[in-house]
């Protein structure tokens, strides 16, 4: 209902016969009219000491340098953009003809515009890599391309011929410097099966590289980031690989004089288990070295497995089977 | 006109103005109905359809549908709990249940012909004990004409359960140092389940007192 009255009211006011109003009397209107007349008159200034106008005007007025309107206003909408923005460059509000805005504001307020907006300058932009520009550059580069080397068609072939894999990362980042410290990091991957070892060397090599070797995938990973440049780090990683490989073939003099406690792994041959197992097999037989029965190879293996790999249900089950066989216990 | 508007709105708004307090849920969330039995009962009425639009609070971490769950037993555990150590409280009540059950099974073994009459389910025993020790009336002091009168007033259902459990627990905690709480609680519960023992006596005493003070009952209203 009230809406209707309001609409009516508005219509009355807007129509030519605006003199008649709802909810108002003439007296009030008149008084307000007189007030308005007073309000409209110029305020006269009482100038007692008339100073000369010239001295007043002498004061120098600061004049702003006229600023050119942004360049993009003159741009045609079908221009060649890659000619305007040929290479990587910091964001330039007067050149980019887009009404961009960026920044967080409280609810209701518009985000700051592109002019004098430092945030827009901080983030990287790909204005030089628009799809047409990429297409253009690819077209231009095509004539310099050489054919893909023969024999490297498949991934297996690549891996076979180049077993060492080098990884490094280039960063495109919002930083004051273009050199990201992470970019110098070089990661070297190689499958252990591509290196040739004997048993001792392999053991030593694995000890040297420690947890850089992943036994699940069989891949050795060397990460180098101690030098300031990527090239140096690459050289260092390659050096590490070479040095470790050759060092692993060196046998030290003290290695022959290790005692049982110093051994890296458990060996059935050297231990008490063998003695007791053989004593049980040869129980009641006269002691003759030649006739002595030897413990079963399967048993030896199961004991070694149990201790070297650690206990689990499978290893223990296997050990039990072998023991039953050794002691000749029937189910 | 505005004033009349406000006066029209006010009385109800006072009732309905829900203060959310510190709850993590909005006020229109309702408690979970986690028991299947209760849900089936609800299904028969048309309340169930209305519930489909309401958001439900998550079930508490001591609610469950398992065989060990009983509302009253849960409450009892909560009353036993001291300093938030609910695990211990539950263990204590379980031990007490075990104790009751052993006693009852031994009784069964002593005279096998009364096997069917002896209740050995500790949960039933506890419920029975609580039912037996629930008071109907209690006394409150009401001051009339400068004199305090002990006036009998009815106990709400909820409070009667509370009092019963509290009394059982108080009786169980009042013991020598050597006796453990579970044992003593088991004895008290067994006694109360057979309608004897200190807790039932306490209830009867209270009732007797109420009976003797029935003359003051009118002070409740005047």
């Amino acid at each position: 209902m009230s809406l209707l009255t309001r609409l009516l009211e508005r219509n009355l006011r807007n129509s030519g016969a605006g003199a008649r109003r709802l909810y108002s009397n003439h007296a009030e209107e008149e008084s307000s009219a007189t007030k308005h007349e007073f309000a409209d008159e110029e305020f006269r200034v009482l100038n007692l000491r008339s100073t000369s106008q010239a001295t007043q005007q002498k004061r120098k007025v600061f004049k702003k340098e006229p600023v050119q309107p942004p360049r993009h206003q003159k741009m045609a909408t079908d221009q060649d953009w890659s000619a305007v923005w040929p290479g990587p460059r910091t964001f330039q509000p007067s050149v980019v003809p887009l009404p961009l805005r960026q920044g967080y504001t409280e609810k209701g307020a518009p985000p700051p515009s592109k002019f004098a907006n430092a945030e827009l300058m901080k983030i990287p932009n790909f204005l030089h890599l628009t799809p047409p520009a990429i297409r253009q550059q690819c077209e231009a580069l095509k004539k310099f391309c050489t054919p893909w080397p023969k024999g490297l068609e498949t991934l297996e072939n690549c891996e076979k011929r180049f077993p060492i894999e080098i990884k490094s990362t280039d960063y495109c980042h919002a930083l004051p410097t273009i050199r990201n410290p992470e970019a110098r990091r070089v990661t070297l991957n190689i499958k252990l099966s591509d290196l040739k070892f004997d048993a001792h060397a392999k053991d030593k090599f694995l000890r040297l590289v420690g947890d850089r070797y992943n036994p699940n995938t069989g891949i050795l990973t060397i990460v180098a980031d101690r030098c300031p440049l990527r090239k140096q780090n690459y050289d260092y990683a390659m050096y590490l690989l070479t040095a470790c490989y050759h060092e692993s073939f060196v046998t030290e003099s003290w290695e022959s004089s290790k005692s049982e406690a110093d051994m890296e792994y458990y060996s059935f041959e050297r231990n008490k288990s063998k003695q007791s197992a053989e004593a049980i097999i040869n129980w009641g037989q006269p002691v003759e070295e030649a006739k002595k029965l030897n413990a079963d190879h399967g048993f030896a293996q199961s004991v070694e497995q149990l201790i070297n790999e650690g206990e689990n249900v499978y290893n223990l089950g296997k050990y039990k089977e072998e023991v039953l066989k050794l002691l000749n216990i029937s189910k | 006109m505005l004033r009349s508007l406000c006066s029209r709105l006010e009385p109800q708004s006072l009732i309905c103005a829900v203060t959310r307090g510190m709850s993590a849920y909005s006020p229109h969330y309702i408690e979970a109905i986690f028991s299947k039995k209760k849900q089936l009962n609800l299904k028969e009425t048309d309340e169930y359809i209305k519930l489909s639009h309401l958001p439900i609070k998550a079930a508490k971490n001591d609610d469950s549908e398992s065989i060990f769950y009983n509302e009253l037993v849960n409450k009892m555990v909560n009353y036993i709990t001291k300093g938030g150590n609910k695990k211990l409280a539950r263990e204590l009540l379980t031990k007490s249940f075990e104790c009751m059950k052993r006693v009852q099974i031994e009784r069964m073994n002593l005279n096998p012909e009364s096997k069917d009459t002896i209740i050995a389910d500790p949960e039933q025993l506890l419920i029975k004990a609580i039912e037996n020790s629930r008071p109907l009336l209690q006394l409150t002091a009401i001051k009339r004409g400068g004199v305090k009168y002990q006036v009998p007033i009815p106990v709400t259902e909820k409070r009667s359960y509370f009092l019963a459990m509290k009394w059982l627990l108080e009786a169980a905690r009042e013991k020598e140092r050597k006796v453990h709480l579970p044992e003593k609680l088991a004895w008290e519960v067994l006694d109360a389940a057979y309608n004897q023992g200190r807790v039932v006596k306490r209830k009867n005493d209270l009732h007797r007192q109420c009976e003797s003070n029935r003359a003051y009952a009118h002070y409740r209203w005047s």
Partner: protein
Amino acid sequence: MEVALRIGVNLLKINRVCVHSASRITDSYAKQIQLNRDFSTEVTVNAAPLAVKKHKVSKAMKAYLERARENDEFMKTQKLEYQIGKRHLANMMGEDAETFTQEDIDNAIAYLFPSGIFDKRARPLMKSPEEVFPARKAAEFDETGRPFHSMFYTGRPNFFKLLYDIVEEMNKIHDLEERMLRRGTRADANQKIDFTGFQWMPKEQLESMLVEQINDLEYTNFTNAMDRLVSLPFSYKCQNFIKKFSKPLLDQTKQLEIPKPQFDADGRQFVTTYECLRKTARGDVTVRMPGTGKITINGHDITYFEELQSREQVLFPLIFAGLLGKVDVEANVEGGGTSGQAGAIRWGIAMSLRSFVDQEMVESMRLAGLLQRDYRRRERKKFGQEGARRKYTWKKR
């Protein structure tokens, strides 16, 4: 009168006028504007000068009109700039400017200016000016400084007008009821408004409809008044009025989308629920169907939980859905204590089980509070207090 004028001037300063001309109504905003139209007053610049010519206009009014015109011009240039920018962008991206939509613009901007700022609103954007410069309340008084609305000085005229309207409706219904009673007819019970499955318009929506900010108490007053209106026997007579402020509630279970089970290597169905949270515990739960009832928690069986209560919690949804022994459960959970971890797993299992039970059971599980995430957390200790709520023992001296 002078005081009133001054208030009017102040209000003018606060409310920058935004003119809604028909051409500006975009698709996305059409709905909201439709709503706003009832309450926001329309003042067009063209309408004013007619009056201005005849009457002397106050300075405040002059400034206001000036500002309105400026704003209009500003919006016009903004719109032009946006149209040109859009063509430029289409050119840059090598696409056709005519078919370039707002979505394309957003994609192009995200490509050209990749920003990792967490808050998506703070990333670079190029939106139409209607979206960037939000609509505001129009002028509420005429050029003489007289408010249009009789309740202007309540501060929230539209809201109080609404309350007033509600009461008016109520009065009408009361009168009707009386007349009907005299005639001996009673309200039709079949036509009675059933408000189940409906709720009153939420506060934010009401605010945007009224173009006014209201506080919680006022909103409660509104809902209470509406509740009263609905409860009247003849309320169906003002069905349209009620409908305007009610919103249908969605079925709670239907709101949650139930994931489709995937198939694993053994050909069994499985569903994984990630982000199972309770207290500070966090985990993920996989339920496989059909199974043998094997439960794996962090590589252990259910003995991972020593307490009975925690074990009960883990089994709760399975018992409830009657799937104990029919599905396999694998859970990984970390953080928190035992009860929190059990709660997280319970929620995860319940959420995953939805895919393997019928709709009725899902609703039943929801009613059991199994599908609701438990948001309760430990309350912090407050300074000057012994704990979260408890105060220090107070001693007078």
